[in-house]
């Protein structure tokens, strides 16, 4: 009797802890709905969704990299360089299809490059991709001719802004990206191998997994996601210019980690990433609606991320 009671209590605690980020996000949502005028409106929620579409696409594929035990700083650079090349292709061919194809190809090539360096160079992935981000940022300046590139046909914006069931096509593409990554992680051999190499790379190799191949595919997918999402964002903004802006990748990694995917690799899931993205989006949106000074927003955002990650670190289970 007593043991059963203990058991159910422990299960409950585990249950609460496992899904903590959901409860917290729901709490933020309910809190903002109650206190903030204009938060719980169709327009506002739609805006949040649409603003997060590009981040979600990058975050979905980056989740794969983190679970595999890697890290990819260069996604910030690919997010900038991909659309520059794509825009050049669009200028030369006036074809939207070729532009997206170019965006995908650039992302894949950059990703394969990262993958090769990490897998064969045996260089820590954070360092390797930090270095490659300099290369990609630099190439961005070269390809852009250091000017602003604008799309030649403004009707192309429809590709990302067209609404289906009230939601933009960019958001639908994010949904698709999430679904793809979910299937990859949850249903395929590839996904299993990603978890395995992130959990114990030597055990995975000795179990017959071709570790390098999986690493290269993972970095390639992440590169593709960043370049494609960057291009969609550029189309929506109608222009792109070279920069050294790393903010995208750090926003993405912050969201993934807040969601509860381990930076050490081997554990995590796509729903965590989605929740993490919206957790941060709700908070930022709440700040804006309440007219909080953006300077303080940053500080509070940082504290909130620390709290969320810190809450995860508490509650190490006892072992014999």
């Amino acid at each position, binding site marked *: 009797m007593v043991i059963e009671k*203990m058991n159910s209590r422990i299960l409950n605690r585990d249950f609460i802890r496992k899904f903590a980020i959901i409860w917290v996000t729901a709490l933020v949502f309910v809190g903002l709905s109650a206190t903030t005028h204009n938060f719980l409106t169709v327009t506002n929620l739609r805006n949040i969704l649409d603003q997060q579409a590009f981040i979600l696409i990058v975050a979905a594929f980056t989740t794969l990299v983190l679970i595999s035990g890697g890290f990819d700083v260069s996604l910030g650079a690919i997010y900038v360089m991909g659309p520059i090349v794509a825009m050049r292709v669009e200028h030369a061919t006036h074809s939207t299809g070729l532009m997206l194809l170019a965006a995908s190809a650039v992302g894949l090539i950059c990703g394969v490059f990262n993958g090769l360096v990490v897998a064969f160079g045996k260089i820590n992935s954070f360092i390797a991709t930090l270095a490659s981000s300099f290369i990609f940022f630099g190439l961005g300046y070269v390809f852009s001719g250091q000017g602003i590139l604008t799309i030649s046909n403004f009707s192309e914006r429809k590709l990302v802004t067209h609404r289906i069931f009230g939601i933009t096509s960019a958001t639908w593409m994010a949904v698709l990206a999430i679904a793809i990554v979910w299937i990859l992680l949850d249903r*395929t*051999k590839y996904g299993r191998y990603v978890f*395995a190499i992130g*959990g114990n790379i*030597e055990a995975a*190799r000795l179990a017959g997994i071709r570790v390098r191949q999986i690493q290269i595919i993972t970095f390639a997918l992440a590169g593709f996601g960043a370049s494609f999402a960057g291009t969609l964002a550029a189309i929506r903004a109608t222009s792109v210019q070279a920069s050294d802006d790393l903010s995208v990748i750090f926003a993405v990694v912050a969201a993934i980690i807040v969601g509860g995917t381990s930076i050490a690799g081997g554990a995590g899931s796509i729903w965590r990433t989605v929740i993490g993205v919206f957790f941060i989006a709700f908070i930022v949106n709440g700040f804006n609606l309440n007219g909080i000074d953006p300077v303080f927003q940053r500080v509070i955002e940082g504290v909130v991320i620390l709290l969320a990650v810190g809450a995860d670190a508490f509650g190490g289970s006892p072992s014999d």
Partner: protein
Amino acid sequence: MRIVVEDLSKRFGATQALRTVSLEIAPGKVHSLVGENGAGKSTLGKIIAGVYLPDSGKLLVDGQEVTFQSPFDSLKKSISLIAQEISLVPKRTVVENVYLGIEDATFSWVNRRSLRERFTQLCEASGIFVPGDKLVAELKISEQQKVEILRALARETKCIIMDEPTARLSAEESSKLLEVIRGLTKQGHSIVYVSHFLNEVLEISDQITIMRDGQVVRTSTPDEETHTTLVEAMTGKTFGSSFPSKNITEAEADSILEVKNLCSRNKFADISLKLKAGEILVLTGLVGSGRSEVVRAIFGADKVDSGEILLDGKKLTVKGPNEAIKAGIILLSESRRDQGIIALRSVRENISIPYLSKVSRLGVINRRKESDFSRTYTTEAGVKAASNEVKISSLSGGNQQKALFARALAGNPKLLIADEPTRGVDVASKRAIYDLLASHSGKGMGILVVSSELDEVVGIAHRVLVMSAGKIVKELIGSEISESSVLAASFEGMDTLNGN
């Protein structure tokens, strides 16, 4: 120092790790704790060392009741714990490690010379000598263990709790450690010795406390116990023999594996061996003699410089473990935690991972097929788990190892290589693993085992190859195999090589 434990109890979640345990540790004595995995011996050690707080019961040091909130508190009472895993800073010198946190310092400026002098005195006083300027990472594990002991002594410890200190040592290194322990007790230190190695326990102890399911079965002296009585008390069962009977190998049987002149620089040289179907061949020798390196090379995990490997008479060129597995070779690696299990994933996933192609279509896994596949082999290997969906790390060491056997058997290999197959495994699981090896060799599988445990070598091998300094120095067949012949060959090999 006399430590008295009275009615200690400790619960972790739903597991009652200790139930009203009482014992007394006398000064200047070696008090061993033995029991199967999960019997509570490590937990007891950790409570005495202040790592865990007991739920109830008393702890008395020299007649005075104490409550340790942390290892720091127990250290103040001169008690320290040397955990199973080495916990030193590898890239720092021995001296720095020994005095970490208790440096001689003037305004946080470390006085190296006086540390050095204290270290020399400590070595002489204790009779434990380790080069002080070497980096810990450059030392052998047995030397690192000495550093741990020196570190404990530097903190003026009177009682040292050692959790499986010889688990990663060769037979030779273990006997040296036992000498060190004897020296310590002569100086009045008491030692709490937690170990799986019953022969060592019988040799070194003054008192033995046998534990089972969190309770003390009995405390006795080594004269009153034998290997068998200890095992029976630990398991609560009687075992006929620790090993299954050996199959008879046919002299005419085909060679499954043939290795010709395999060389790898700085690891091993000129290794040639043959393994027949249905034979259990054991590769032994001192730790560092190159046994694991040879089997890793056969499996394609490490590159070789020259030589040939033939499987079923066909020349084999494998570029990596994935190709070796396809060719029909499976390796159970030496370190279960670092090279075997994927701790965060379920038992089911750990077993199916090399064979996902068999249960998937177009890269998508059929979950039901996979479950059935994994279950077939966990049943065959006798893995005891609440279900195949629990994390593999939640299983006991013995069951994790059986799960890895299940994974190996699932590949239906022609050649199974098992590197230290029973390390850190409880007595009952050991027997189960030997049974698995015997039954599969009986069915014609070639089995190559690397082992350091002499009783195991003698108990299971049809043939033994003894390695020393990267070479095979002796072959022992059938009745030639005995603990003394194997040990003699291991050391002879060393001497001849040194003589050259």
